């Protein structure tokens, strides 16, 4: 494709979208002149495209995925819960669940913790803004790009050779044997998680930074005058004050981590016991010509894990609207 055909396609797509709204509203204006009040037809015009897309891309698939999980690999014959039974017995599934749990425990916790510490440090130091920019930068990079960056850091050469991976170069200079980090079962998961922590800490940091401005200055001053140490202020004033924000950040990162896929696919594709649910699902969408039944089971397990957060969000939203 040439640049011109790209511009052509892109403009057509966007123009069609604008035309719909403009023409339908003009038509509506034209025909509704007889009525003094705007009917709910106008609301329909405003809502229809978004609602149809929501229906096709979110609501229908959710129902359909649940249905497919009870059907065979082609989605034709009802097979009861045999896909679920298969999953429970499948060693890869077990590995995936364990790894996902590990990711869920470690990544949100450490990202939130680092984010909080960095936001706190940076607010008190004159070059803090630059520091925050640097810590935040990985948020802009794709997971695959981050994968390449870290694969380069973890690169392994034989013991006699010159190491070109930064981590092994450090290890060797300290007098240890170089390691092929991403192939050491179980531990390799930690090295993959480090990538995610590297990315998500920036997110936690900026949100904490915004929230920290809300901590009353008088309270901090008073504590300092009373001789509280900075550490004490951090643990006894700032953390309790931010506990809502901590919860929010923790849930956001949890959702991202539940769906973790790109990093695994790019770095190991689930080898060396790094399998996770989302990657297994992608795998089963195409493995053996594609098995929609088994693939759906993985999707549903991820979905079920998200449901509590979903309910919490709706509840919180209702509370906010009341105020």
């Amino acid at each position, binding site marked *: *494709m040439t640049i011109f055909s790209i511009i052509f396609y892109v403009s057509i797509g966007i123009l069609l979208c604008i035309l719909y709204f403009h023409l339908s509203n003009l038509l509506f204006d034209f025909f509704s002149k007889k009525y003094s009040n705007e009917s709910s037809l106008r609301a329909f015009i405003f809502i229809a495209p978004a609602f149809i897309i929501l229906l096709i891309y979110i609501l229908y698939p959710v129902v359909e995925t649940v249905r497919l999980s009870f059907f065979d690999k082609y989605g034709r014959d009802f097979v009861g819960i045999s896909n679920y039974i298969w999953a429970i017995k499948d060693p890869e599934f077990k590995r995936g669940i364990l790894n996902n749990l590990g990711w869920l425990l470690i990544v949100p916790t450490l990202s939130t913790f680092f984010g909080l510490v960095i936001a706190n440090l940076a607010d008190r130091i004159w070059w803090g803004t630059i520091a925050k920019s640097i*810590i935040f930068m990985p948020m*802009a990079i794709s997971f695959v790009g981050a994968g390449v960056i870290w694969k380069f850091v973890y690169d392994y050469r034989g013991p006699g050779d010159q190491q070109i991976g930064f981590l092994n170069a450090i290890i060797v200079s300290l007098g240890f044997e170089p390691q092929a980090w991403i192939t050491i079962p179980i531990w390799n998961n930690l090295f993959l998680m480090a990538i995610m922590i590297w990315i998500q800490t920036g997110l936690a940091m900026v949100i904490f930074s915004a929230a920290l401005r809300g901590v009353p200055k008088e309270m901090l001053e008073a504590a300092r005058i009373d001789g509280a140490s900075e550490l004490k202020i951090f643990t006894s004033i700032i953390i309790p004050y931010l506990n809502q924000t901590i919860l929010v950040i923790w849930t956001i990162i949890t959702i991202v981590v539940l769906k973790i896929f790109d990093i695994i696919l790019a770095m190991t594709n689930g080898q060396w016991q790094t399998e996770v649910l989302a990657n297994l699902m992608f795998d089963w969408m195409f493995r053996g010509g594609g098995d929609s039944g088994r693939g759906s089971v993985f999707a549903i397990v991820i979905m079920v894990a998200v449901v509590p957060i*979903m309910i919490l969000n709706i509840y919180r939203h209702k509370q906010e609207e009341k105020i």
Partner: protein
Amino acid sequence: MKKNLLSSFLAQFLLLVFVIVWIIPTFGLFVSSFRDKDLLAISGWWTSLITTQVNEIHRTVNMESQIQENNIYIIKENIFVKNSKKKISSFGITSKNINQFLVKETATLKDGSKLTVYENGDYIWKSQKPFKNKKGRRIFITASSPPKFTFDNYKEVLFKEGVGQAFLNTLTVAIPSTIIPLIICSFFAYALSWMKFFGRDTLLALIIASLVVPLQMSLIPLLSFYNDIGALFNISSKSYPGVWLAHTGFGLASTTFLLRNFIKSLPHEMMEAAKVDGATHYDIFLKIILPLSIPAFASIFILQFLWVWNDLLVGLVFLDQVPSEIIITAKLRELLGSRGENWEILTTGAFVSMTVPLLIFFLLQRYFIRGLVAGSVKG
């Protein structure tokens, strides 16, 4: 006072450690993408400013280049193909002993011929008998290679490896996938905040619920849905419009939610006044809401654009993995598989894929952060 100074010093030190740990991986990638590929393969990027020792194998030219002078047959050439800044320190003629001779020393080969190699790569090979070798003879050299930075990797990656095309493909995916949801959702968000219709609160709850529905839930049904449509009209089930709509669908909930929160916060007296003057909802939307929402649009545009640009999964599932459609993240993943040891390709490819996000990041960081914070505090 002394205690304050100490704690401030500790804080600065700790922050510095974080910054260094965070920047080193990206910095290493950046430096490596400009290094000569032969040097990159044998030395760490942190050595890129110092001279590196390299061991290389070269071949002499074959018998066709020999000249005859006073009954002595001579082959005279330079080892290096291009002008090289490498300096040879020693050489060898067997793989067992690659540093057998220093430069300017003369090696006597089995057949009695004599070979001398000079520092700049020139060599002279003399023999009493005519040379009969059809293939060049191997010479092993140890040379010091000065730091070398180049744009060659970029040329190679952009034009030969197809990353340039993938970059354009990603733009083709990302621009409409950002603008279309923005248009559709702004109307939707307006209706959700200021219009009265049946089921509005339910719809809003549905949007909030959809915020966290994992993408994975949609993939299998949508893939078969696309295949059915493709079969029905006898067209390919994978196309750019298909991806645009998929991204619109997956970004719909968050875009609507953020916009709705923003539009809801605008002063409603303005709208009441316009209504009294006989303005329709469409007028109000175009003339009042749209201009006021520009900053919110900027934030949401950036969030969605970066999301789409960095996406891998949707691009893998809804586009063919062919040169005219493959997106840059998918291309990068393909290179990780096929060119896993060619770090000059991987580092450069990764850096090309990062240019747009980094540009947006450094130019529009404020809007990016604003969007993230708005999205998080509420959602």
